[in-house]
């Protein structure tokens, strides 16, 4: 049976929800894996969140729906509240503890990472927070290698910011939670 990894990314428009999904998908394709990403926008943008549902597998992916996320990158409190119900004991929720704190009623494992503050302190801008979270995810993620993700990062982000993005990725990857 093919291994299937489900990743949910959600937050406000402009937080890089789609971009982070693209980097993950690009990395998977570079490695010869199968991947799908559904993007919800429009109404949901107006409702305060954007969502990427990313599935990565070493076999054909039929349903592209993230029903039980293995990983949930929750960029906002609203996104967390909306989708925490999908998470089970196997789920890992990566979040900024300054945005919201772990919900004891959710059986998932929470990985808090003050990404905005880290980005501001180390890189001079909070915009790198999402790549920091991606770096943290890469340390946990099966199937997709760090090298593929770094290549995906280069292919999907503006070359002018490659150095900063590599540093952000590395900050997240090496962060001790």
């Amino acid at each position, binding site marked *: 049976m093919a291994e299937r990894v489900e990743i949910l990314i959600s937050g406000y428009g402009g937080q890089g929800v789609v971009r982070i999904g*693209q980097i993950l998908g690009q990395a998977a394709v570079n490695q010869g894996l199968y991947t799908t990403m*559904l993007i919800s926008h429009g109404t949901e943008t107006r409702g305060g969140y954007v969502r990427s549902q990313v599935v990565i597998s070493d076999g054909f992916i039929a349903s592209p729906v993230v029903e039980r996320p293995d990983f949930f990158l929750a960029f906002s409190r609203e996104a967390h509240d909306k989708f925490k119900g999908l998470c089970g004991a196997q789920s890992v929720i990566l979040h900024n503890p300054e945005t919201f704190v772990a919900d004891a009623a959710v059986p998932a494992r929470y990985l808090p990472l003050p990404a905005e503050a880290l980005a501001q302190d180390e890189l001079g801008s909070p915009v790198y927070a999402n790549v920091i979270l991606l770096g943290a995810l890469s340390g946990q993620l099966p199937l997709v290698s760090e090298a593929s993700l770094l290549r995906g990062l280069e292919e999907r982000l503006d070359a002018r910011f490659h150095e900063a993005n590599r540093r952000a990725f590395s900050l997240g990857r090496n962060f001790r939670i």
Partner: protein
Amino acid sequence: MKRTFDTGNAAITEGALWAGCRLFAGYPITPATEIAENMSRRLPQEGGFYLQAEDENAALHICNGGSLGGLKAMTATSGPGFILFADPFGWAVSSEIPVVIVNSQRVGPVSGITGAPGQGEFYLSRYLTHGGNYETIVLAPNSVQDAFRLTVRAFYLAERFRTPVIVLADQMVTDGWETLQTPESEAEAREMGLERVERRVNPGPVFYPASSDIDIPPVVLGHNTGAAASDWTPTDRGHDTEDVTWQHKHAWRLIHKILDHRDLIDEAQTWSVDDDPEVILVAYGTPSRVVQSAVEAGRAQGLKVGGIRPVSLWPFQDALFSRKAIYLTVELNWDGQLVREVRRAAAAGSEVHFWGRCGELPSVAELLDTVRQLQAGVALTRDAWRTEKW
């Protein structure tokens, strides 16, 4: 083979270009705008023309005109633009002009919900124009790769049948990202099963023969053949007539050129339908992928469940439903459209039920719960077209 991570919008663009599309006229509309954007970048690179029309009606008319002049043409839209095609679609059907139309379905009616997937144009795609007396070819992709393949197929069928072909997608197919493989040589294209027909020019003087033959070159202007294409009922030479005998011949051709060559059109995917299924899930487009997962998961749990995905929607493939079973259509609408056609086509003694929702796909778990209810003879909270309250 070129392997990229891309959207259905990009897949449709690349499929059209591979098929020889050299004219795109459209009007921006969520969620089909990206097809126009991709075309605006890619078409000039391939020597083709990109135009933004004053509205969707004009967009398809411009495509029709380009095709009438010899260019392969395509437009793309969503529901509110699709409805404006009624007029030029009918013109292309009757004048037998090859053209490809993409509809990325969103939630309706009218402007509805712009960025969420829907499946409200199942019947509209069949009867996109008034007056009847014609058949329609409609293909429904369910993935990025499929969007590429079926766009190529749509151009192929449009040329051979001299008719508009509709690619009926949904927001998840067009906006969704996935692995996309495109051929880098003719050999690779053949390996992928892709086919393309070059445009030919009808020499006249008979432009509209009263036969069901396909592969008759379309009417093309500019070659001084005495070509005629119009909204009027044509004689075989394309002259306007009010004679019902000519009208009968014309209608017969429009219907039978398609019905007599269904082997070229009919396509479906099935899962576990020959393994004694009690319940068969039926879906087209993106929901069909959840159906596939549900059948696989259900079988793993010992449920006698099967799945059917019509890939070509129109003409409707009645033969897919010749088995007596409990059918459940899975649709992205609240009113149930596919279910009506399955009810008509299903073998005697079958039950046909409906599961529908707008904006979100079902989960595998929800579908399997419904399968269990149906097997146990438990009445669904939603009986056919009657939806539960929110």
